[in-house]
């Protein structure tokens, strides 16, 4: 088999804001054979997307391909000028972005955008192009292939849009397709269908591909070979089978370990039930928009939810986007007032609005958000951020505050010297630790964790989870841990509640979730989480009726 891509000693440089030149890709070489799918895997900042983009002769603003060659068929993409690259893009190499929603122009129909490549390169008459697009829609298992092209991007679901982006890439019959985290933004039940569609088209047309992802389990389904990257250099490269079964590099091993963390060592459920609950939520309704006649909000996001969290225990809340899990957290924190229902903290009712609760009540429940980038005020230093709750709740003197900030930084395992830095000078994992330390500063009894590991790389997220468990042992905290990621929730929670369309459909212990006898939606959710096993996707059999009932595709 001939190689379609030959990358030799690739080097990419970037200019920082301070004007310093840093090498972000250093001496990377690899080949892609005809019809082969190669995965580039690594954490954020590992250079996986940068490498993939060089295959199109593109470097992001501020970056420059400074050395080596990128042979794609007969062209050296590293040496081509912009207009020459433009002639190659779309027909020799095509790109599927992470967010199809951002890649489609909302003002044009889908068909116009899918066949744009044909128009630009004058490949065939437009009538033929439309017919070909419809063929592709069929191949990608899109519903109503004849008419879906007439719709606008907002009229189809996220999973469909991602497949339509694939049709856009395939229409010019490229020899190589670059997948840039195409399923990362999708729910797991949607992801399966998209992956299947991608796989069948790629195999059917024998196109080579580059699959960029941070998710080993997804990559295991798609790729023939895996290249593990870290800090812009190749750590390990090998066949998928070898990488996931017999990883040679310790970093690869760490990635694999992070995919399926150990289950939380559950405490006896009966013993737990006997304890007085720390937090009890009953018959909670919450939503957005103005009120309708019956006193319910226009959009009801949480319906009839009961929860019970015993002191010192963790409750996981899991569900897909739009299931109301974050709204539930906001209602408990008093940010979005519950319409009806009771929220009891240690047996005492809490007011629906945060501003009607006492400072002591507010102190006991703290909330930590997903994105540490927006959760920390960029104009304050870390110690200023941590000192505020100390002053606000505990009225500490300046000296006490400084001492306590040091202790808090120790607790979340950050060096004390970090106190003078601003959030922009911290890494993602460090920011999330500061974010968590701010919640700890209040000395709370319950911490609401809203997707706190979702924006982090797997290895960093695993470390944060370990930290959470350790702090719980020391401080006797309770967590309500909200996530869309089943394996993370199972790693830290005594109890898992599954939410669907605003309602809690099931609550069981982490080891029982998805087992026979549970709620059908929980089973679907459990089955849909990719496993670190090459044959998983092909052998997966799901109940069509279940998918029909619950999955948004």
């Amino acid at each position, binding site marked *: 088999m001939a190689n379609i891509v030959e990358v030799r000693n690739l080097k990419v440089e970037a200019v*920082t*804001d*301070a004007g*310093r030149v840093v090498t972000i890709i250093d001496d990377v070489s690899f080949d892609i054979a005809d019809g082969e799918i190669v995965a580039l895997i690594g*954490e954020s*900042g590992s250079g996986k997307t940068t490498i993939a983009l060089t295959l199109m002769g593109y470097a992001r603003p501020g970056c420059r391909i400074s050395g080596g060659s990128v042979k794609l068929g007969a062209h050296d993409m590293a040496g081509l000028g912009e207009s020459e690259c433009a002639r190659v893009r779309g027909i020799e190499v095509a790109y599927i972005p992470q967010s199809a929603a951002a890649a489609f122009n909302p003002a044009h129909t889908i068909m116009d955008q899918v066949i744009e490549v044909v128009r630009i390169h004058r490949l065939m008459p437009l009538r033929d192009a439309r017919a070909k697009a419809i063929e592709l829609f069929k191949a990608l298992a899109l519903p109503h292939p004849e008419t879906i092209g007439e719709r606008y991007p907002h009229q189809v679901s996220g999973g469909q849009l991602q497949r339509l982006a694939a049709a856009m890439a395939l229409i010019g019959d490229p020899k190589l397709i670059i997948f840039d985290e195409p399923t990362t933004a999708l729910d797991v039940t949607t992801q399966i269908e998209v992956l299947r569609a991608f796989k069948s088209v790629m195999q059917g047309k024998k196109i080579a591909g580059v699959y960029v992802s941070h998710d080993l389990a997804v990559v295991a389904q798609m790729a023939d070979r895996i290249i593990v990257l870290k800090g812009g250099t190749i750590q390990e490269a090998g066949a998928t089978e070898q990488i996931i079964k017999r990883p040679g590099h310790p970093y690869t091993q*760490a990635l694999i370990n992070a995919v399926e963390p150990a289950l939380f060592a559950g405490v006896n459920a009966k013993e737990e039930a006997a304890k007085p609950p720390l937090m009890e939520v009953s018959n909670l309704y919450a939503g957005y928009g103005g009120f309708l006649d019956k006193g319910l909000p226009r959009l009801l996001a949480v319906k009839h939810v009961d929860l019970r969290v015993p002191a010192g225990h963790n409750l996981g809340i899991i569900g897909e986007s739009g299931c109301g899990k974050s709204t539930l957290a906001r209602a408990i*924190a*008093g*940010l979005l007032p519950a319409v009806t229902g009771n929220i009891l903290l240690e047996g005492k009712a809490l007011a629906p609005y*945060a*501003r009607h*609760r006492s*400072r002591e009540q*507010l102190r006991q429940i*703290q*909330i930590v*958000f997903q*994105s540490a980038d*927006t*959760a*920390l*005020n*960029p*104009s*304050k230093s870390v110690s200023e951020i941590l000192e*505020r*709750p100390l002053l*606000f*709740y505990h009225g500490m003197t300046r000296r006490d505050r400084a001492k306590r900030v040091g202790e808090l930084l120790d607790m979340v*395992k950050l060096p004390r010297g970090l106190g003078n*830095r*601003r959030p*922009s*000078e*911290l*890494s993602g*994992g*460090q920011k999330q630790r500061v974010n968590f330390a*701010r919640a700890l500063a*209040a000395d709370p009894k319950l911490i609401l964790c809203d997707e706190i590991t979702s924006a982090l*790389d797997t*290895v*960093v997220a695993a*470390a944060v989870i370990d930290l959470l468990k350790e702090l719980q042992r020391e401080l006797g905290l309770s967590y309500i841990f909200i996530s869309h990621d089943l394996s993370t929730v199972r790693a830290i929670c005594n109890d898992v509640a599954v939410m669907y369309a605003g309602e809690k459909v099931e609550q069981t212990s982490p080891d029982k979730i998805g087992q026979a006898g549970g709620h059908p939606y929980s089973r679907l959710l459990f089955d849909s989480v990719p496993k670190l096993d090459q044959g998983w996707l092909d052998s997966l059999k799901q109940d069509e009726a279940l998918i029909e009932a619950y999955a948004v595709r």
Partner: protein
Amino acid sequence: MTTDTVSPGRRVSYRFNKIGLMSLCIILAWALVAFLAPLLAPYPVGKIVNFEFYAPMSAKFWMGTDYLGRDMLSRVLMGARYTVGISLVAVALACFMGVALGMMAAVLGGWIDTVLSRLMDALISIPSKLFGLVVVAGLGSSIPVLILTLAVIYTPGSYRFARALAVNINAMDYVVVARARGEGLGYLVRSEILPNITGPVLADFGLRFVFIVLLLSGLSFLGLGVQPPFADWGALVRENLGGLSLGAPAVVFPSLAIATLTISVNLLIDNLPRKIRDQGA
């Protein structure tokens, strides 16, 4: 923990670039002149010192004389005091009210936001020159009336600008966290929102200052601004308009003064040091 990498901190300084520095110097020079005008002026401002009116530039009268034979240099220097002083007080008032109300509306939301915003919309719908004309015609022209009128005219713009910025910041998780902590309006506005919008608000301050200088000059040119025997730059242009056909320099210098000040402020805003510009950008 080992995989956490520290991003190198961006060290940006407060240093101005050349154009920024130059315009800052011009602005500071005018401010100094406004402050020290009586000491710098070579002749008493209202006194006729030459029999020749519209005299050309000479060693004795650097900027020539005006339509009555008064020294132009002294009048331009004293004019700076009125133009810069009135504009500065007015812009400070306008921005203070606008930014404070704008942040308040963004944080509190609900009916307070609606009432304030519609009130500002009503105010902004009145043409600024017309508004100035009516108020000055009704109340008579005095410096406090001028300052207040100018401030009221430019408050809605500043309000809208600050509110739009504050609404964005208000949606940030750190503000939500502060709310969940139980913080009050004062803390949210002062400590969470204001530090993150200072850069754009400062730029807006400068821009609005320019607008006010131009409006004040316009009003004075129409005879509604600073009243004789005192004169700001706009009034000086008007007084000496007749000299234009005689080739007198008297009309050129106040115009130049207005131009240098407004252009410098604009250039300064465009060339602010990165550190200031990036605050909340």
